[in-house]
């Protein structure tokens, strides 16, 4: 078997395509999943960071054994190729990993991810980013719910305005990764920005900006987030227009703004109307 060596540890080379050696010191790892990407938050965040911070693709996890390879999937006329890639932002000392959720062998996939990040790139911390669906109105302030894998790390991140989550149920892949990182003594946090349910199928620039603000502040990135304000303004304007034109939709959103709930049928109607509006 072939192994990569950097430092004292070994990484199974057969799992990876390596494009260049990372010029990172002691980076933080940011992980985003494109599967079930609520409000397209993960894709937006990673795209923004890679673009603004000059992220360079350095490696990827080979799909064999993790993704179905019996053909090629497509959506909206476009082929979808499973990609699980690492990018390095040298100046900011960030390692970014973006991937679809593997279909098979999560344990081996996630351990491969951590092997590469820990032993080859020497990461110090892990951050996962995924949107979570919320029953709040789009006009309400968003929160970022947080899950930590070490109490010390939780203490360290106090003061960033994150809210502790309490939850029990089926684990998302981010929670699995966070748990595996804990076993390796890598401090980690899962960020779960809230996204109003009727923006979940589209985009939520408010949640995107909020999450980027946290990352900007945490890593002193010096990002200019002003360009997101025009996206936020446009979206708010369109929804305001819809509210003026459709009394029923307006009433639904009014109720959410007053902290009241909608029944399932009303939720579907609102989500569909906003999705149709924003996809244009």
């Amino acid at each position, binding site marked *: 078997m072939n192994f990569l060596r950097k430092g004292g540890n070994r990484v199974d080379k057969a799992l990876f395509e390596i494009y260049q050696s990372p010029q990172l010191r002691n980076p933080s790892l940011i992980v985003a999943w494109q599967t079930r990407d609520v409000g397209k938050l993960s894709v937006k965040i990673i795209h923004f960071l890679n673009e603004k911070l000059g992220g360079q693709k350095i490696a990827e996890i080979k799909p064999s054994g993790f993704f179905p390879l019996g053909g090629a999937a497509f959506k909206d006329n476009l082929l979808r190729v499973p990609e699980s890639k690492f990018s390095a932002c040298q100046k900011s000392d960030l390692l970014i990993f973006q991937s679809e959720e593997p279909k098979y062998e999560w344990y081996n996939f996630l351990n491969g991810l951590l092997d590469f990040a820990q032993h080859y790139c020497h990461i110090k911390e892990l951050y996962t980013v995924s949107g979570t669906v919320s029953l709040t109105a789009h006009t309400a302030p968003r929160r970022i719910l947080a*899950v930590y894998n070490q109490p010390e790390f939780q203490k360290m991140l106090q003061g960033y305005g*994150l809210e*502790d*989550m309490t939850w029990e149920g089926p*684990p998302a892949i981010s*929670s*699995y990764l*966070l*748990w595996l990182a804990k076993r390796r003594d890598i401090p980690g946090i899962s960020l779960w920005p809230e996204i109003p349910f009727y923006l979940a199928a589209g985009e939520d620039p408010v949640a995107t900006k909020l999450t980027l603000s946290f990352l900007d502040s945490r890593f002193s990135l010096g990002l200019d987030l002003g360009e997101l304000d025009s996206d936020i303004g446009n979206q708010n304007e369109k929804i305001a227009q819809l509210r003026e034109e459709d009394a029923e939709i307006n009433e639904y959103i009014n109720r959410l703004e007053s902290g009241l709930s909608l029944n399932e049928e009303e939720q579907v109607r609102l989500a569909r109307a906003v999705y149709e509006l924003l996809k244009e």
Partner: protein
Amino acid sequence: MGIRLFKEPELEKPDLICGWPGIGNIGLIAVDTLKGVLKAEELGEIEPWDFFYPKKVSIKNGLLEGLEFPTSKFYYQRLEKRDLIFFIGEEQPTEGERMYATGEKAYQMANLVLDVAERFGCQRVYTSGACVSPIHHTVKPRVVSVVSSEKLVEEVIRYQNTILISEIGGREGEGVITGLNGLLLAVAKKRGLEGICLMGEIPDWLSGSPFPYPKASKSVLEVFADILGIRVDFGFLGKMVAQIEEIVERLYEGFPPEIKERYDERKFVVQAKPRGITEEDAKWIKEHIDEFFKKRGEQGGQSSV
């Protein structure tokens, strides 16, 4: 991929008795009840990560407290007549979305289970599952056996309420024991161990239902008690049987009279081949059962964090 043993008791040629989920959870309930009755102690476990996805995460006040995986545990007990090792798996390892174990992972699991058994000197392996049969639900399920050698045929036919699978018609002497109940015995045979599969009968029309069929588990458990020379209190199992009988009776009451009449013929016949209902009847029952459980299952999904 590993085994964790919590202790190393001295056991004398223990028999291995295995239970996994399957149709009606017949084997699992029988083996788990036996383990409980005998107050078997924990012996070890197979680490789950290579075989299973986590089923639950616990997050409290922002801290990830843990992930819960399906367990695959060993237990042991020394009896007067013989020593026993139990293996109870909460899930069968699968590749893809099948219910039963298939592929390389199932083979690895079977070998790990047998590695532990052989380490303690095991020479005989029992598995237990379901045998889908054209029986009436009011009839006491028989225990259907498949064994690894002719010598064992002589033995199992002496067990109470037990028949050989060849005594059930419609199979032309051939068949497959699906999942680990079969695979484990195949691997055990390759290793030179004796293997016996004890399957409790479940009425064919109930084989796809989501509830357990403890009546068949009870039949299997009676056979195990017979083999081991022990007395078992069936109180708990009896309650479970009564609860499920109530549900089954309600379903049965919904049969159209002509199907009911044909189905009831099964009460009076020792089954050698499928009879009592037509293919059309079977189709009607299946569709209506599915509908019944679909209604019960439509109570919303769950998201994950």
